[in-house]
């Protein structure tokens, strides 16, 4: 009997939550959970709070079961998970910033998202207070002879999102990298409170623009789980086709960009053109290059026509004709491999500890893909491979992405082949009492987690979105250690973590 079975037997279900339970736990049980996480039997999926209540979502690794544990906190604090399980650290600092609940004996109490510049202090607390202004941020100390610091950002040299990197280097070698994020915090979760489901879906679709399909899908699935809507099978198929197109577009673009950062611009030119073709096909078939706002709770705003199927097949054929040649080029260019192989290594132990999702985890031997491990529709009926490697370097992450592009092409063809007939229009939801829903969706970057509660009027009462980047950003800090500063862009691009999704 596992610790999760014990909990399921001894705990109250806190609320009707679907498809996985949310349990009311005691402080003692909360601490037990911390031990299970630290021992590696559970993986932390997310940690967030409402006024006077903290929630933790966990994954039991042996059974791939999910549960949410909720702890009432009548005081202003709760037992820290981050104290014994590092991946929780930034999430607990965020809880402190947004809700004002403090994790007890937290080893790092510096604010994370709150830079002291918002209009409100503790914006998600019952009574937000006046902000107290910006205070200096103390980076972690690094001591030793001949060390120097290199501050980078928030405005970077390339066309990328803002964040601050503080390198401490000894000559060319990076001794420590510390990230400071939060620059693109827009208050997405706060804007969702009290909003209609439709409006919140648009906000969710803009959590991280490169994953707009995955976020819209995760949000729609959470609403459908909460309100017990059964969408027609055609909807599941079309949504999966969109999710795989998004995966291909991002992987193809990123592989090109990684090679470009290793001074091999030819790959970027070819793969950039390929990405453009994918986006143009998406525009023709779904009416938007990134397929924003097409997936909505209850269905889709647009169906694939027979012309659309033709267009998508043409696009796939084009990729199949040119992608393998580019893969061969990558594989045969030693100057490129020189830069990517053995650069920016993430050990399998760290990837497992942090529950790293997507290609970051799978390049470091963590065999988790929400499509397969949790088997949501329509993936539960499909056969496909989840590529795994164990080197954990830039090269391994590139190869995982290459293999995933190949799998996604096969998946889309399979889905188009067996696309069921039927409606895709939105099924109206009826809400009579508050209800809660959870979903986990495999975006191109990894698993996206969403929990939400709908109030009796059918509006969003609270919604929490967790980007895969939360558990990948800290690994980038580890991966760059011992590499030279000039290899940072390469390592960083091979992760391509989301700033917007993390900062929210």
């Amino acid at each position, binding site marked *: 009997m596992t610790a999760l079975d014990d909990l399921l037997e001894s705990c109250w279900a806190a609320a009707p939550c679907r498809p996985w339970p949310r349990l009311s736990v005691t402080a003692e049980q909360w601490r037990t959970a911390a031990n299970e996480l630290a021992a590696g039997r559970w993986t932390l999926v997310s940690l967030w709070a409402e006024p006077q209540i903290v929630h933790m979502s966990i994954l039991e690794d042996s059974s791939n079961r999910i549960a949410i544990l909720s702890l009432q906190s009548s005081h202003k604090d709760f037992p820290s998970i981050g104290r014994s399980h590092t991946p929780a650290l930034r999430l607990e600092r965020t809880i402190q910033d947004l809700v004002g609940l403090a994790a007890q004996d937290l080893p790092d109490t510096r604010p994370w998202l709150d830079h002291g510049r918002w209009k409100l202090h503790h914006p998600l607390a019952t009574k937000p207070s006046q902000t107290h202004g910006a205070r200096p941020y103390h980076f972690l100390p690094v001591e030793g002879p001949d060390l120097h610091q290199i501050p980078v950002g928030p405005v970077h040299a390339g066309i990328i999102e803002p964040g601050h990197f503080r390198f401490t280097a000894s000559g060319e070698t990076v001794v420590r990298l510390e990230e400071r994020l939060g620059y*693109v915090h*827009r208050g997405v979760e706060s804007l969702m409170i009290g909003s209609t489901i439709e409006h919140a879906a648009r906000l969710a679709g*803009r959590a991280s623009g490169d994953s707009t399909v995955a976020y819209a899908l995760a949000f729609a699935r959470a609403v459908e789980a909460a309100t017990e809507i059964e969408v027609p099978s055609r909807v599941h198929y079309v949504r999966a086709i969109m999710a795989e197109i998004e995966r291909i577009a991002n992987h193809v673009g990123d592989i090109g960009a990684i090679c470009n950062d290793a001074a091999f611009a030819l790959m970027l030119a070819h793969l950039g*053109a390929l990405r*453009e073709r994918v986006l143009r096909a998406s525009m023709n078939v779904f009416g938007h290059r990134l397929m924003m706002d097409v997936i909505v709770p209850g269905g889709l705003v647009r169906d694939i026509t027979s012309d659309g199927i033709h267009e998508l097949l043409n696009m796939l054929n084009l990729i199949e004709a040119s992608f393998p040649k580019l893969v061969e080029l990558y594989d045969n260019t030693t100057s490129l491999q020189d830069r990517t192989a053995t650069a920016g290594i993430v050990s399998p132990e760290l990837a497992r500890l942090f529950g790293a999702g997507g290609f970051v985890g799978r390049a470091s031997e963590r065999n988790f893909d929400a499509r397969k491990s949790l088997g949501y529709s329509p993936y539960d009926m499909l056969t496909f491979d989840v590529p795994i490697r164990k080197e954990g370097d830039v090269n391994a992450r590139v190869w995982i992405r290459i293999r995933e592009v190949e799998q996604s092409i096969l998946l889309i063809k399979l889905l188009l082949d067996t696309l069921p007939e039927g409606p895709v229009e939105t099924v109206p939801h009826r809400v009579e009492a508050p209800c809660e829903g959870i979903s986990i969706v495999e975006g191109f970057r990894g698993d996206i987690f969403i929990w939400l509660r709908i109030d009796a009027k059918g509006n969003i009462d609270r919604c929490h979105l967790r980007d895969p980047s939360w558990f990948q950003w800290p690994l980038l800090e580890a991966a760059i250690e011992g590499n030279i500063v000039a290899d940072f862009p390469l390592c960083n691009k091979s992760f391509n973590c989301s700033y917007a999704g993390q900062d929210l």
Partner: protein
Amino acid sequence: MRKTLLASLIQGPLTEAAPRPDEKALEEVSEGLRRAARRSLGRSLAIREVDTGSCNACELEIHALSNPFYDIERFGLRFVASPRHADVLLVTGPVTSNMREALERTYRATPEPKWVVAVGNCACTGGLFTSSYACVGPVSAVLPVDVTVPGCPPPPIEILRALLALLVGMENDTPQNV
């Protein structure tokens, strides 16, 4: 590599014909341009992109401007790494409170003459984030904006049209024509 290079030679270019400059953007830029600036700049613009709270969708489309279909550099438009080398700030996202100072400092670091182009609904109006405790509002709440490119995100061709309007606006407003 030889195969790929040869195939690219035979294939012919992907680059497409230039779009017409955006009419609305032309109107926007025709007023505020200074003669000295046009004389010193000629037909070339150095662009510094600044994300002040975008969801990164606008960044994806700005990136696409450099792909072989749009090939933005053929118009004399190029992205530079520092605001000190820039003529234009291309700003995306509702300006978050956490990014306001960075945006102001980037603007101050950009030498005169300089122009600000707001890309995307968020940058133009604040978008969905207008009422947030964490956002200041559209770019115009912080900096003088010369051209706006609405869209969520605007497709690359629209961003290109706006930038071309900026270039053409400068030419039309040359001393000879005044």
